[in-house]
């Protein structure tokens, strides 16, 4: 999996054209993971 999307520029160089949208699932995953981690933490260690 790549971090960026690449293209061939006008004169044949490899250029970055943007972030890879394949990463989107990982960003969603990161959000869900953070939520789960926090929820589990709170569940195991109740405040007060």
């Amino acid at each position, binding site marked *: 999996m790549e971090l960026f*999307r690449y*293209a*061939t*520029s*006008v004169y*044949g160089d490899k*250029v970055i*054209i*943007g972030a890879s949208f394949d990463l989107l699932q990982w960003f969603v995953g990161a959000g869900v993971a953070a939520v789960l981690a926090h929820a589990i933490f709170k569940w195991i260690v109740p405040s007060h």
Partner: protein
Amino acid sequence: MIVKDIMAPFELYQPAQLKDAFSLLDSFGKDAWKMAGGYDSLDWFKDRIVRPQAVIDLTGIAEMKGIKETPDGVEIGALTTLSEIENNPIIKAKYRLLADAVSHVASPQIRNHGTIGGNASQNARCLYFRYGLPCYRAGGNTCFADTPEGINREHALFGADRCVAVTSSDGAPALTALDAKFVLQSSSGQRVIGAEEFFVGPNVDILHLTAAKPEEILTTIRLPSAWAGKNFYFEKVADRNVWDFPLVNVAAAISVQNGAIRESRIVVGGVSAVPHRLTQVEGIIQGKALEEGTATLAGQSSTRDARPLNYNGFKIPLMASLVTRAVRNATA
């Protein structure tokens, strides 16, 4: 370094049945390329811009070929060659508009092998896109044609959205004017959509000119009987009389009752990414007598929202003329 005009290797699959084609599409996913007559595909391969792992040559699938009458009209297999359509007696008798249109495609040799499905589905011919530049249509972030000095004589008057490429098909405007339905099949079923849904502009999908999904195959085009035998007109203006894409073309189907226009579908190609249907013009001329004044009115009102680029302003009078001629000269 860039090398063009020599194909990179690929695996060639030649399924004889649709279901085999679907399973190939499903198993190769993004790495598959669907090819019919090849006149669009081979250019991409030769210029090494498109490098599929697997090329699925559909031309061996018999069930996608041929023209047959149905209770609702006519069904044309997407792999039917343009020559066959041009010379088919049913099409000539009832849908002459389509026969006329495809007879103007490229050259006789190309029509002998090129298919109606491929003609309708062909990608944009924008010179920058075809050069392999990272333009919007290629997934990049730039339109090289619509720049202060860009070369855009062949580009869009309408519906440009970042990308200013146009449809170059001669068949597509005729199919749209005839209210054709497009049958898209995949391993998970089929859907039937109208021309206005099948052809998509850059505002909706900047990467594709049609709504066909990668896993779908355009198998059949249906022409409804509603427009059979109406008054038709097709004209194409190109730089050359053979082997050229249209600068502008027009396809019109007009139903006439007692000398007045009952209903019409007028579609212009080469001015937008999709066949540009003139619904406003159709409304304006509805009920009007079929005469020169109506034709002129149709032409004049057709280009109201045109937004010309550096070099394509001539398409405005050209389109107006062609629309006028379509209404003036449409005959049964």
